[in-house]
């Protein structure tokens, strides 16, 4: 190559390159979605403006977006943490609803407690339930070789059935007539909003904090390093004596606990009781958030807010342009497909990255090595 590039720029290129597949995926998604809208004779620019307005255009939109982003961060961790150990878990929805149910019944079965203690008890119940449910998938995989993707989704369907059965049967509040629910949470125990001028509940703070903790765990702790060895090469992990089964189980339980916590906040801060409104697809969207963030907990925070925004704008698209609410589902599907398809570029990216990093050191070295 004869073009002269200053070392600093080359180093910058090497640093920025890993983002290339994601950037290309988003760009292709926008393009394909625009073509899709255009083919349906829908004003593309107006739709784009509406998505922005519905997601981030006003304080109200921001509240709506962040309200959705909070559970998404936690359900995304349910995918991302097991993914560190090489598992594809997609049953977060089941862990969320069962966690929510556990949180909803805790105050009914415990004596009256100060609110803060009760919140701890509710969160513990929800996380234990969620952790157990996803842990079951991990256990079946390690014990019997049951594929965890299929297993976790089947468990999720079973969880939804058990949830519906309990909420409409044994645990139903007789006073809830046309919307079967568990007994409503006493006002003293409901989780409030962060500030009176900004109506977003504390679940958002919890989501961000848990994501940050997860980041420390996977990037800056010995266990986190062990997870990635298991995820990278199981044989090597066994050879150096790592407790593979236990590590896999731990990632699953932690992921499930995060999803369960999301259910607790949905019950304690949004719904006020466990009912069918908990089944809102946060588990499914969480899968997309985790893949978009490439299972990086800090990136999950950003991706959850972006996807929460897209979902929040759905009702505005419906009202102004008469688009069905499945429109955002299509956008999400196209994005997911593109994210995975552009993964094909990763091999090249690694190659380019080494190349540009070499050139970034000293100009002479770069030329000699790639003559």
């Amino acid at each position, binding site marked *: 190559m004869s073009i002269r590039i200053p070392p600093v720029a080359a180093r910058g290129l090497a640093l920025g390159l890993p983002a290339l597949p994601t950037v290309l995926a988003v760009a292709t998604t926008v393009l394909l979605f625009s073509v899709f809208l255009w083919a349906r004779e829908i004003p593309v620019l107006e739709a784009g403006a509406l998505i922005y307005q519905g997601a981030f255009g006003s304080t109200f939109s921001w509240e709506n977006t962040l309200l959705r982003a909070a559970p998404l961060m936690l359900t995304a961790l349910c995918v991302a943490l097991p993914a560190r150990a090489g598992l*594809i878990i*997609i049953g977060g929805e089941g862990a969320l609803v069962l966690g929510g149910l556990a949180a909803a019944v805790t105050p009914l079965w415990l004596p009256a407690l100060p609110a803060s203690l009760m919140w701890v008890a509710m969160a513990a119940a929800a996380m234990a339930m969620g952790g157990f449910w996803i842990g079951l998938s991990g256990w*079946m995989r*390690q*014990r*019997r*070789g*049951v*594929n965890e*993707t*299929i*297993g976790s*989704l*089947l*468990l999720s*369907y*079973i969880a939804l*059935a*058990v949830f*519906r*059965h309990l909420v*409409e*049967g044994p645990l139903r509040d007789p006073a809830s007539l046309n919307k079967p629910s568990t007994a409503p949470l006493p006002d003293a125990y409901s989780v409030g909003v962060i500030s009176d001028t900004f109506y977003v509940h504390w679940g958002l703070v919890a989501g961000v904090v848990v994501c940050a903790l997860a980041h420390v765990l996977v990037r800056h702790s010995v266990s986190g390093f062990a997870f990635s060895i298991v995820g990278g090469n199981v044989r090597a992990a066994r050879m150096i004596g790592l407790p593979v089964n236990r590590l896999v189980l731990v990632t699953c339980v932690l992921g499930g606990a995060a999803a369960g916590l999301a259910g607790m906040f949905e019950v304690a801060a949004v719904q006020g009781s466990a009912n069918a409104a908990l089944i809102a697809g946060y588990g*499914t969207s969480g*899968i*997309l958030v985790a*893949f978009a963030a490439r299972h990086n907990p800090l990136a999950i925070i950003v991706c959850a807010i972006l996807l929460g925004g897209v979902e929040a704008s759905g009702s505005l698209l419906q009202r102004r342009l008469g688009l*069905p609410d*499945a*429109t955002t*589902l*299509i*956008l*999400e*599907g*196209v994005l*997911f*497909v593109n*994210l*995975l*398809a552009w*993964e*094909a570029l*990763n*091999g090249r990216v690694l190659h380019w990255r080494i190349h540009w990093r070499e050139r970034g050191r000293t100009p002479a070295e770069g030329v000699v090595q790639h003559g």
Partner: protein
Amino acid sequence: MAEIDYSVLLLALLAGAIRVGTPFLFVSLGECLTEKGGRINLGLEGILVVGAMSGYAVAYLTDSAWLGVLAAGCAGGALGAFHGVICSLPRVNDIAFGIALILLGTGLAFFFGKAFIQPQAPSLPSIELGAWSDDARVRSALSVNVLFFIGVALTLLMHWGLRATRWGLVLRLVGDHAQSARALGYRPALVRTLATAGGGFLAGVGGAYLSLYYPGSWNEGLSSGQGLMAVALVIFARWQPLNCLWAALLFGASGAVGPALQAVGISSGYYLFAAMPYALTLLVMYLSCRPNQTLSGAPGELSLNR
């Protein structure tokens, strides 16, 4: 009613096994075809929904149920080919892409299906095997849809085709050892893409059965994991088309337990009975899988057996 009429219950179970099991049969045959080539397509769940929607829409617009089935198959085949092509790129995980396809397929079906929730499309015809009986219940139980017979014929065809034809051997070779296939001059990526497209076609037809025969109309809650259960069913059936038939009937029967109990007057625990097929699938997978050991009959290239 204190006493349960067991003959009615059994009849309802048998009829249900065929009625509920037929879509399982088509999707599992499709998944079997795909997996014989060494790939897993979890997206069959999404393809099933797209097949149900497009089949219903075309049947309504053309007033012909069979054109609907054809359209559903073609839509499924197109999505299957899409999965096949993208997964031929390096570093693309077929399982993850299947999940993406579920999301995309459901989105497309719900988007375009909005207009077809109300109208009534023609149904697929059935064959009255119970015409000899005077009992209306027997007759309704033995009224079996034509697609079921087509499915049985396809099972036999696939059983023979995979064993005795050149195409079947090439597909199995690609699925067992892609490098050998390449050495013999075949192109594994192409073979797999074709197998995935064929599998998508069958899953689409299975979807059309859902919307055009039983339950018999298009709505957004039509499919609930049948596509995913088919993946588990193929493992249970050890990648043998004939076993797929028995497994599909077994799963159909488990799905029919709830309605059959309702027919004799037991209606509590509706949701729990509806979850029977999932529990059965899990149980079957738990019992039939073994850790650290490839299952007999499993294609060697399948990422399920890493």
